């Protein structure tokens, strides 16, 4: 992680001087993470790809404004968050709550693919804010402070969204992972 940050820092310095190849390298280091985050957030492959493209273009244009190159990851995901939610807002009429998707998954001892589908469905049942908190923490490994920076909200809000999401996921996934009754909170 430290090496990654050091290399990112070099690439950012070169990109700021107009080295396009350095920026292309930076894109190739981050595109998979950004794409997967957006894919889970907007739930559409083409949209996720288009938004990813937009994110990297905006990041390039705003690179001179990046104060601390060491925080490039959080800064990039802040742009991705803004672009992702901008798309979600355009998609639905104002004030309308996002729909819950998916159906509860039953059964245990699932194959990896089935488990992946179960997780996808469980994530789909969360609100966008809750899902995003899980994506940033569990899949992208950001610290609470970094998440607060990305989401422009206090750490307490980040924790509240994440903890609620984890409680919901715990319940939703319990049948899929064959958690014993005691772990599911059943007496």
């Amino acid at each position, binding site marked *: 992680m430290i090496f990654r940050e050091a290399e990112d820092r070099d690439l950012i310095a070169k990109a700021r001087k107009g080295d396009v190849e350095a920026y*292309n390298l930076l894109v190739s280091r981050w*595109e998979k993470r950004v794409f997967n985050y957006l894919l889970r957030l907007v739930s559409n492959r083409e949209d996720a790809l288009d938004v990813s493209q937009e994110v990297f273009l905006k990041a390039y244009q705003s690179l001179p404004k990046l104060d601390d190159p060491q925080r490039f990851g959080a800064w990039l995901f802040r742009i991705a968050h803004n672009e992702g939610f901008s798309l979600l807002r355009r998609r639905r009429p104002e004030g309308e709550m996002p729909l819950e998707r998916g159906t509860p998954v039953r059964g245990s001892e699932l194959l990896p693919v089935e*488990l992946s589908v179960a997780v996808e469905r469980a994530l789909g049942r969360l609100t966008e804010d809750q899902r995003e908190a899980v994506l940033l923490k569990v899949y992208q490994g950001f610290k609470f402070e970094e998440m607060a920076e990305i989401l422009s909200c206090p750490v307490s809000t980040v924790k509240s969204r994440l903890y609620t999401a984890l409680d919901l996921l715990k319940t939703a996934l319990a049948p899929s992972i064959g958690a014993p009754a*005691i772990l599911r909170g059943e007496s």
Partner: protein
Amino acid sequence: MSCEKFDWKAYALGELTANERREAEAHSSTCEGCRGELAHMRLTIDTLSALREEEVPRRIAFVSDKVFEPRWWQTFMRPSFAAACVIAAAILAHGFMMRPAADSAEIQARVDQAVNKAVAEVEQRNEDAVNRVDRRVVSLYTTTTGIKYQ
């Protein structure tokens, strides 16, 4: 039922300090409720990692028309241009070294012809390559910005 004093979610997510971790671990070794809570949280987080990460369907293209314009010196640094120079130099050197003791106008003309032909071929290849790159850049620009390149 776990004890409220301990934040097992923060523990499982790696957000506790070393001291907090030690304190929590000491407690969980004596509290069945907290052990159960932590085990279930870890199981949930492990299960979430079953979600497959997807490959990016196609390379994220980054293009900026201004920065893609080669600088004047980059034109001379292109491999095709450099190759043309090397070939031309090699032909000239060959012609110079292999010439008979007595120069004849006919040999010189053949050398010139060979040089011109080689240079023309390389220049044509160079132009084709530049055109291919230009077409690619225009295509990426259009894809990226949605604006037709003028």
